[in-house]
């Protein structure tokens, strides 16, 4: 096959853009692994060091922040999977009274995410006594309109015959859900799970508003306090801390690239 004219040029341009896109991260890596004095003087043979990581680890309570984020993300995702499965099933297969209106009301949350309502949600959490708790961070996100919508679409594609066969075998309506619908929706669960974990690992505004102690603050909030200019920490250490905080998600992304991109694609298009 003959290459079209200009192909080499376009390839160079695509590579150049890729290099440009990676450069901020590459620069941060470079700064994090070299002595602070080298951060502004590029020298290929500068000595490598882990001192910045050691410093970052002691400047902020990273282990605690990591734990909080892991607990938060796990809690939100488990609750979302259960709640969205049940609600998605209701909308896909039960034409109950008022289901059109109810579905419309669910979709409102696609626009009005909890972070838009920080003022009122803070007040509600105060009334519930959940300010400064991990449950308080997670609760507004557990019934996810996005998850309900995705699962409803997926469940609707399941052939009715499969459900009838399961019913003949003696499954009740929850048995059908568990044995027929949930296994067939596995790709959707994976896609939704990846999107949800990335979202909540990175979420900042609502966790910032609702927490004020180290014991509850997730990584992003800890990172914001650590990286704020008034903290006076030097750039090499900030880079090291930032890389530590993003590395679990970044490594997961690099390992499961295809899956990540397909999930974001699938989730966005439906």
């Amino acid at each position: 096959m003959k290459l079209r004219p200009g192909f080499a040029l376009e390839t160079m341009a695509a590579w150049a853009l890729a290099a440009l896109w990676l450069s901020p991260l590459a620069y941060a890596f470079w700064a994090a692994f070299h002595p602070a004095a080298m951060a502004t003087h590029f020298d290929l043979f500068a000595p490598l060091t882990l001192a910045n990581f050691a410093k970052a680890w002691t400047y902020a309570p990273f282990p605690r922040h990591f734990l909080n984020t892991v607990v938060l993300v796990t809690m939100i995702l488990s609750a979302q999977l259960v709640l969205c499965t049940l609600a998605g099933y209701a909308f896909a297969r039960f034409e109950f009274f008022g289901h059109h209106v109810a579905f419309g009301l669910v979709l409102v949350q696609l626009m009005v995410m909890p972070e838009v309502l920080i003022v009122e949600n803070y007040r509600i959490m105060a009334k519930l006594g959940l300010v400064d708790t991990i449950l308080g961070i997670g609760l507004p996100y557990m019934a996810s309109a996005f998850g309900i919508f995705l699962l409803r679409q997926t469940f609707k594609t399941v052939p009715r015959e499969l459900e009838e066969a399961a019913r003949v075998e003696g499954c009740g309506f929850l048995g059908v859900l568990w044995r027929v619908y949930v296994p067939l929706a596995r790709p959707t669960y994976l896609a939704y799970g990846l999107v949800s974990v990335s979202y909540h690992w990175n979420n900042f505004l609502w966790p910032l508003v609702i927490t004020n102690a180290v014991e509850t603050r997730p990584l992003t909030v800890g990172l914001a306090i650590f990286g704020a200019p008034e903290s006076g920490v030097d750039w090499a250490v900030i880079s090291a801390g930032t890389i530590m905080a993003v590395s679990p998600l970044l490594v997961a992304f690099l390992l499961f690239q295809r899956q990540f991109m397909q999930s974001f694609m699938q989730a966005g298009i439906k």
Partner: protein
Amino acid sequence: MKHVYGWLLLTPAAILLIGFTHYPAVATLIDSFYSTGTAVRPSRFVGLENYAALLEDPIFWQVLGNNAWFALGTIPTAIAIAMVMALWVNDRLPARALVRMAYFTPTVLPMIAVANLWLFFYTPQIGLFDRLGALAGAGSHNWLGDPDLVLPATMVMVVWKEAGFFMIFYLAALQSLPPELEEAAKIDGASRWYYFRRVIFPLLMPTTLFVLVNATINSFKLVDHLFILTKGGPDNASSLLLYYVYQVAFSFFETAYAATLTVVLLALLAALAVLQFLLIEKRVHYR
């Protein structure tokens, strides 16, 4: 029975949705008609007073304008870059997977981390921006301290963060195009630019509209970077509506006024939702 089962299945999610989306949205609207209560003065009904104050508030108009510039400055640029990225990555490019990964990586990073890293790039003299500028013979700038530069400076970062995410949608659209199209264009001897302009670009239009509306909605929620980079400053030159809501509520403790600002934000999001609905309807008919 289907009514009972349906509602039973929906109830747990419905309670949380009503509790943390519908109720607070309605409560926000009600609060906007009351004054902020204090220990000595309980809140009282003030009618449209908060809205009158809003219209008189120069900061409100400034952050609203900033939001508009922010959306105008980031979205079309990010969309154009995303389209080019998708065309390249969809092509038989050497090291295609690596290039695609490079474009998408900023998407998986939290905005706070991105802002932490970019803060250094903006530093006068020693930062990357000024060093690149110096190579081109430009002088030093205080990127985040100059009211005229701060918003464009943050926009560059946001474009970098968002373009790869938009690329995904174009990639999906390109992969769904029949391969015969390109064959036909080749046989006709169409140039690549002509093929893009007359065939690909129009076919990508539904995707562009979809990304455009979603990106606009999203632009009202993109405020995390302000906490690190500028705190909305200097003189609110980089502040955005949601950040202003946060400041009014949690720094100035004017919760009634914060509710009023939130109502404006909700109204804008609702208008965009209606627009999106109409566009999707149109797309269905088009097919």
